[in-house]
């Protein structure tokens, strides 16, 4: 279980997170929604330790993430980055098998390649793409390779940062279905950042809305439409008028 208590983060005078409280139970899929620039990615990076929060606490199964042994802590995570973040100089299969080829539990190359090919198949990519470079793939394929890399080492917790941004609706649907299938199949805890409401309904067990550095609303995805919070209603219906300023 991931627990955030009064998490705060500022960049200079810009207070991005102003006291976030959130609990993500083990084995569930939490989707964080909110407008652009509301600190969703910062929140995710704070959990991973990529950005150090200024105040509050973040715990994973009761252990403070800032004091947990770093390698063991990160070994529990997989992450799909918004742009894929594939390593340009490595082939597709080397990207997928990156973690498998390094560190204490490194596998022989043939074994790692076999796992990479299996993960590529799992995300709907054929073996022939394995030896291509990321630059030779389309945006949707890069996203799927990123997804294959995120799940390659069978992590307990998977983060998805804007998994469908920049994709056409069909490819976005494919990615949403894949994420849902993989999370259910692996029994992983998932945390997704998105402002794509189709993704929210496809991926989420629970939803939390981040606005002005605070969690404004959280609850099961089934109660999202009936939420009585005007911020949530404006956001999920994409209205230009309401409590959330359109010009920020």
């Amino acid at each position: 279980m991931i627990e955030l208590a009064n998490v705060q983060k500022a960049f200079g005078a810009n207070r991005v997170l102003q006291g976030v409280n959130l609990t993500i139970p083990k084995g569930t899929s939490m989707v964080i929604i909110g407008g652009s620039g509301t600190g969703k990615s910062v929140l995710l990076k704070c959990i991973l330790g990529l950005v150090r929060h200024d105040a509050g606490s973040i715990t994973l199964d009761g252990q403070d993430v800032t004091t947990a042994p770093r390698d063991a802590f990160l070994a529990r995570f997989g992450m799909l980055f918004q742009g894929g973040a594939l390593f340009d100089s490595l082939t597709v299969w080397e990207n997928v098998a990156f973690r498998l080829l390094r560190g204490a539990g490194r596998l022989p190359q043939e074994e790692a390649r076999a796992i990479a090919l299996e993960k590529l198949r799992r995300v709907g990519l054929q073996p022939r793409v394995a030896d291509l470079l990321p630059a030779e793939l389309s945006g949707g394929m890069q996203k799927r390779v990123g997804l294959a890399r995120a799940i390659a080492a069978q992590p307990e917790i998977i983060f998805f940062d804007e998994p469908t941004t920049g994709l056409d609706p069909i490819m976005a649907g494919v990615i949403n279905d894949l994420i849902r299938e993989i999370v259910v199949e692996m029994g992983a805890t998932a945390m997704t950042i998105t402002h794509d409401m189709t993704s929210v309904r496809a991926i989420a067990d629970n939803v939390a809305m981040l606005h002005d550095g605070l969690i404004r609303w959280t609850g099961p995805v089934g109660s999202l439409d009936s939420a009585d919070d005007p911020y949530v209603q404006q956001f999920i219906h994409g209205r230009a008028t309401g409590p959330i300023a359109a010009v920020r």
Partner: protein
Amino acid sequence: MTAAGGLALIGRPVLAALAALGRIALYAGQTLLAALRPPFYWREFRMALLQVGWLSLPVVGLTALFTGGALALQIYAGGQRFSAEAVVPQIVAIGMVRELGPVLVGLMIAARVTSSIAAEIATMKVTEQIDALVTLSTNPMQYLTVPRVLAGLFCVPVLVAIGDIIGIMGGFLVGTGQLGFNRATYIQNTVDFLEAPDIVSSLVKGAVFGVIATLIGCYHGMQSGRGAQGVGAATKTGVAAAAVLILAANFILTSVMFGQ
């Protein structure tokens, strides 16, 4: 403008430069610590050897060749004023080995390697590849910086040695082809005049300049701002800083090794 305002105008950039030097020194210390800890990424090291060493050979060779030739012409023209034309082989040799070889190779490496390292790492940062490395339990310092800096440490002295030889060869070609020097005498004078400390100083300078060029490229790449502008600024600042630091280091090393 008041006197205090004028002093502040000078003081601010000086303080900023000193702060930057301090951060670079800290980064160098972190690199050293990372180099002493496992794992060591051999594949990245081999790739860096190729990039820093092998692929820099053409630019280093051509620069040294033309500089050696020009140096021979200048020394001959200057030497004529004192009837000292005969010292061309000796001065070309000492000039190339002690100063021009290491400095020109260092500056060429700053232009070619520092820029490419800074741009590559800055792009990786902008596209979240550095964050991805961290989430994949890989220390970016060990994966990106250590292999490149070690490649600079080992490759650039070799490039300097090659540059020295090609530069002397440039002087030889001009001296024997255009200035009428006897081939055997030219080579004999060159070999007789050079001493071991000259060659050692050249290689030491190469190693120091190699570390500076690669370390500064990595540092500015890692410090890059956002977007294309951030990558451009990291590259530009990296090359300028590496060039200035190489020239400053050259002065210090020359003072230490040859100062009276």
